[in-house]
Structure formats: C-alpha cells, structure tokens
C-alpha cells in the first residue's frame, strides 16, 4: 500500500471538463439550425450534412493515421463540427464531389497540416467554404428555392444579399428572414435558430458573449448610422443582421476557440473588426456576402491581437467599490 501512493503537485481534483464536452456542446447548439435546414431543404440538407461530416472525419482519420502517424482523435467532436459547419455554408444542391474537395481542403490543408486541433491558424470550415467559393463560384452561388409551401424544388433563386446588391426591389420580408424561409446556404436559414444555439452555448459556458455580440452590435451600429443618413433598404440594419451568413458566422464560426483571440479586449477588437469588414464587403465589395472573408482575415490577425492585449489584471482596478 505505502509504496503505491501517488504523489503529484496540486491541484488534485479536476472539473471533468473535456474537449469532447465542449465540442459536443457546440453540436447540440447547432441542432435548431439543422432542424430548420432539414425542414426547408428536406433530404438534401440531411445528405449534404451527413456526407460532409463523414468526409471530414474520414480525411482526418486517414491523415492522422497514415501521414502524421499518431492516434486519430476523430471522435473529439472537432472534425464533426467542421463537417457540419462546412455543410451549413454550401447550397443544398452542391455536387457531392465538390463537397468532398471542400472537406479535404478544410481538414487536410487548413487543420491537419498545421498539426491538428489547437494548432490551426484559420477556421477550417471558413477556409473550406472560401476555397470552394473561389474555385466553384457558379455551383456555390446557385441556391434552390426554399421548400416551404412550394411544390417544386428545382428552381434556383437568388439570396437576400444578392437582391440587396443587384435588385433591391425584390427584397423579402424581414420576418421571413428571421424565421428562415428565404434562399441561401443550408445553415444560414433561420437567425432565430442560430440565436437559440447562441443562448445554449452561453448558458453552458462554452463561449462568452464577447465575440458574437460584438459582431452583431458592430454590424447593427455601422449599418444603422448609414441608414440614418440614407434610409434605403440597402442600409437597413435588420436586413443585414438577419440575412446571409452573419448569424452563423457570428455565433459558430467566429467563436471557434482555436482561431479567435484569448483575451476579452482582444475578442471585442476581433468582433467589431469582423462586423465592420463584413458590412464594408457587403456594401462596397465585389461579393454580395462578406462574413466569411471578414472572419478569415481576422483569424490572421488573432496572434497579433493576442500579443498586444492582456487579461484584466488583478490590482489594476484598485478602487471602485
């Protein structure tokens, strides 16, 4: 007995928290948006999401085992999240082979070549989406008409943001955008469903409010100011908030642990910058949508932000009680 006592430094207890718990928590938070997607796009959404997850897990397994020669950890949940988010960022009628290329790029190039979970610089799903958008612009910007109340699903339609950019007179009701019945990528449908996911993650303390709220607030304030000077739909803050990938990006993509800043002040800088860049691209750029570019750009700035910001130190608020 004596000799078998374990001696180690304190602390001697652990919270029991794990990578898996956090990752599966994010997946639970993605369920509402997934349900809306299945409701709107029926079987297509299910197939694309399932295959995307399978591709991501499969590529990670193969790369970890045969190239990196380490024990694959495909059930830690991170590859599943990448798979779901990649699927959420593509149209539901995307050819499967294109999806497979996106998954290979996201997992193989963006995640595993940097060393796997924790070491990547860019968010794999975002980088995967942008890679596909640039490589296959036609397939990536042709969305099927949402299936709600319609009898056909073969017609393709433009999204709110392309209306906004190219034909503002055809804009849908904001209410429909909020609940999710306008055209777009699989996971971008319902702002409401994504916000439910946000509330769940905040409640479970998986993320803090700083990044999503600062993105949403900066988009609202920036477009709001423009709207005050020129009240046309193109500047309407509500349209900007509830359209395209803004909510998906703000809640699930920009909050990726690995690629976002670590300090609270850094998170605010990051979030506000993403909001501003998004609006700038939407209003003045060549693409109708700018969230993913904004996030990718700020991913690149994350190490710099981490380097120049510090947590609020004890002792620096000497007297305010």
């Amino acid at each position: 007995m004596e000799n078998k006592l374990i001696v180690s430094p304190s602390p001697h207890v652990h919270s029991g928290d794990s990578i898996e718990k956090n990752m599966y928590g994010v997946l639970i938070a993605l369920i509402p948006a997934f349900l809306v997607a299945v409701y709107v796009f029926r079987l297509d959404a299910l197939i694309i999401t399932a295959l995307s997850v399978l591709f991501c897990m499969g590529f990670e397994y193969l790369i970890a085992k045969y190239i990196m020669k380490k024990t694959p950890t495909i059930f830690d949940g991170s590859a599943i999240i990448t798979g779901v988010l990649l699927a959420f960022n593509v149209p539901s009628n995307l050819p499967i082979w294109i999806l497979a290329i996106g998954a290979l790029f996201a997992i193989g190039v963006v995640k595993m070549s940097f060393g796997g979970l924790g070491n990547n610089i860019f968010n794999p799903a975002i980088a995967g989406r942008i890679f596909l958008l640039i490589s296959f612009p036609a397939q990536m910007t042709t969305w099927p008409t949402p299936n709600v109340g319609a009898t056909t699903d073969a017609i393709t339609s433009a999204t709110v943001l392309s209306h906004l950019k190219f034909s503002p007179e055809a804009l849908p009701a904001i209410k429909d955008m909020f609940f999710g019945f306008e055209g777009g990528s699989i996971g971008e449908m319902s702002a409401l469903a994504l916000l439910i996911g946000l509330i769940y993650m905040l409640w479970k303390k998986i993320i803090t409010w700083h990044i999503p709220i600062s993105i949403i607030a900066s988009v609202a304030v920036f477009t709001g100011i423009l709207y005050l000077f020129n009240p046309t739909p193109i500047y309407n803050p509500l349209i900007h908030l509830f359209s395209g990938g803004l909510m998906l990006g703000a809640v699930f993509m920009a909050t990726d642990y690995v690629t976002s800043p670590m300090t609270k002040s850094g998170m605010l800088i990051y979030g506000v910058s993403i909001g501003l860049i998004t609006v700038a691209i939407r209003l003045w750029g060549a693409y109708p949508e700018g969230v993913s570019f904004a996030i990718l750009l700020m991913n690149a700035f994350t190490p710099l932000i981490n380097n120049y910001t510090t947590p609020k130190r004890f002792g620096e608020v000497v007297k305010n009680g």
Partner: protein
Amino acid sequence: MLKTFRIGGIHPKENKFSAGKAIQPIAIPAQVVIPLAQHIGAPCQPVVKKGDKVKVGTLIGKTVGFVSANIHSSVSGTVLKIDKAFDSSGYKRDAVFVNVDGDEWEETIDRSEALVKECTLTSKEIIDKISAAGIVGMGGATFPAHVKLIPPPGTKAETLIINAVECEPYLTSDHQLMMEKTEEILIGTTILMKAINVNKAVIGIENNKKDAINKFTVAAKSYPGITVQPLKVQYPQGGEKQLIDAIIQRQVPSGTLPISVGVIVQNVGTAFAVYEAVQKNKPLVERVVTVTGKDVKNPCNVLSRVGIPLSNLIDFAGGLPETTGKIISGGPMMGKAIASVDIPVTKGTSGILIIPTLESKRERMNDCIRCTKCINVCPMGLNPTLLMNLTEYSEWDRAEKDRITDCIECGSCSYTCPSNRPLLDYIRLGKGKVMGIIRARKA
C-alpha cells in the same frame, strides 16, 4: 447579491462530508516527532538535547531570524533524539523525537475552560506573546503570525479581516472550530485588533456555512467593531488578495502586501490560537484537523497534538480505505500529496484528504485548444496557457512581463482545463525561476 471577488474563480464540488462533526481529541501515542520547520521561514534551532525532560508547552525550538516561529513540545516526556525525519515536504528535516510519559503541562498554562474576556496588555505585549507562542497562519500557509502584525514602517492598518472562508473543498476544521469556539475566536479577534491598533474587523464567511454566519452575527453584537460578512461561495476566496477584494472592494496592487490597502488578514484558526496564547498562556501545540475522503468510513474533525503521525488520525477515521490512491495534506486544490502516512501532524495540517485511485490519476494531456477557460477562471487576471508556454520555452523576460510572479498557485487553471494541461505545474516552475532571476538582479 452576496459579495465576492471580482476576477475569475471557480466552484468545485464542496464534498464537506465532515461538516457538523464535533471535534474529538486524538489519543497521544508513545512517541511523537515534532519537526523544527513548521512554518514559512527559517527552521528553529533546537534548545533541548537527548535525555531532557519536557512538558506540554516547553520551548524546544527557538526562532532564527525575524520570519520564524517558536516550536514547543506538544507532549510531556523525555527527548529521545534530535534527528532527521520525513515531513509533508517529502524531505527529511530536523525534528525532535519525544518519548511520551503522562500528560503534564507547564504550570503557566491555564487549562480551564473558563472564558477570559479581559485583556489589558499593550499592543507590543500582545505581539510578543503571540511571537513567543509560535503562532503561524493556521489556514495552511503557516506564515508566522506576529510578522504580519508588525507592518513595515510608514504603513498603517485600518481594518483587520478574519479569514473564515475555508474555500477548499472537503475541509471543515475551521467551520467546526467556529461553531464550538465562537466566543474565543471573537475575543482573539478583539486582541488582534488591539495588537494592530484598529477599531474595525470583518469576519468573512462563505455562505455554505450559514450556521456559522448566524452564530457569529449574533455573538459579534457584544464585541464592538466586529462585523460578519457573508460571502458568495467561490474558490479561491480564502486567498488573501481575493478576500480583501471581496470584503472591501479594493485590489492589492501587484507585488505589494495587503497593508498597502490598509488591511491585515488573519485566519480564523489563528484568531483562536491567539486567544489561547494571550489569555491562557498556551503555545501552539495542537490544532483541529479534518480527516476526510470519499471512501473514508468516518470523516471527522479531530483535535491533534503536533507530532502525532497522520496514520493515527486516519485510523481514528476508520482506517485507510482499500481504494486509496493518493493522500493529501491539506485540501484538494492547494494541498500537498504525501508519500507516507508516517509523517507527523504540524501546525499547518488543516486536513488529511484521502483520494480514491480512480480520481488520483490525471487524464491524458491534449494540445491547447485556446478555449480561454483558464483565463476566465484565473483570480489574478493572468493568462495561464501563455505562462505555461513561456515556461516551456524558457522565455523568462516575457514571463516576468506577463506577471508570472503574481500567480497565487490556486490551481483554478489546471482544474478547469478541458485539455487536462498541467498549467500550474509549469507556472510554478517558471515562477520559481523568474523569482530567482529577480532576486539575483537585486543582489
């Protein structure tokens, strides 16, 4: 809203199995081993030799230097030898071995239960008595109590804070002492107020000890200047700086002592020891120890003389469970894992915690996923994962700039890390290294 400190913090499962268990004395064995280093600072010089007769309360180790605390015999009998013995540090250090014979006390010690309220001594006389009695911080850090009572020149204390937080999970020794020795603690607090010449004292108690809060709130009414402050349960509220922030909303600046915001903090067990030393002439020779653990048959609070082997206390609690994997001296967050149960109880032994094998091993460590949970829980506003990396790569300048020396080693970062990274292990290493560099620079 209950008060608490404003940065970071965690709430581990409390597991206070021994709460409400009356303090029971431990029988004195045939031999005790009294270490000469039971405090932070220089070890004592022995003042007895082989064959000397000692009584309970006889001085056997004298202080060397200012930061040090006298050691007294906790039993009566004959000094067998002065030799090296293992203590909770894991090293062999000097200790006095005493063969026990009866239980005879020094005549000057008042052993009656009678409450002595009146204290007419001056501040200096009180501090001298506390110093002579060898009192140390009873919360576990064992910093000599009298040193804290003599603030550096140019500083002035305004408030005394009594640390009755007991934020470590499992431990209940302070709680039970508060329930059984309420008046004595309040008198001890009054004496400490007199010693540092303040007229305001706050006793901070966490809200998971409602009975103690009620008892003290009622009893404190007859002690002018003493108030009770209930606090939200949050670890590490027993940390000196955290407790001050929680109670008076002032944050002690980096690298300074609590006196810089006009505060002196003493543990509730220390206040009781001060009462006994000043009013009863009794040096610090025994203390309350919690013996506990998930598989311990009879988790309890015991009164143990210094020098009794931990194994006697464990036997009293029903013996070592079959499942034992790790034994901690202290609490689970900051306590020390010990290699043997034959080491003696010392002034700083607040608890003996027996952890089952299943919970003794750490999970496999993964890469940092930068979830920032360690930053969120750090009560000092540090970036633990950064400090770990800086230590790993020996970036001492940067580690110093990022305040590695502010770390209070509470372990909240390691506790919370989803990747099971040994953050505190590295930070402790780096902190020691950086402190050495700073010392060398000053020298």
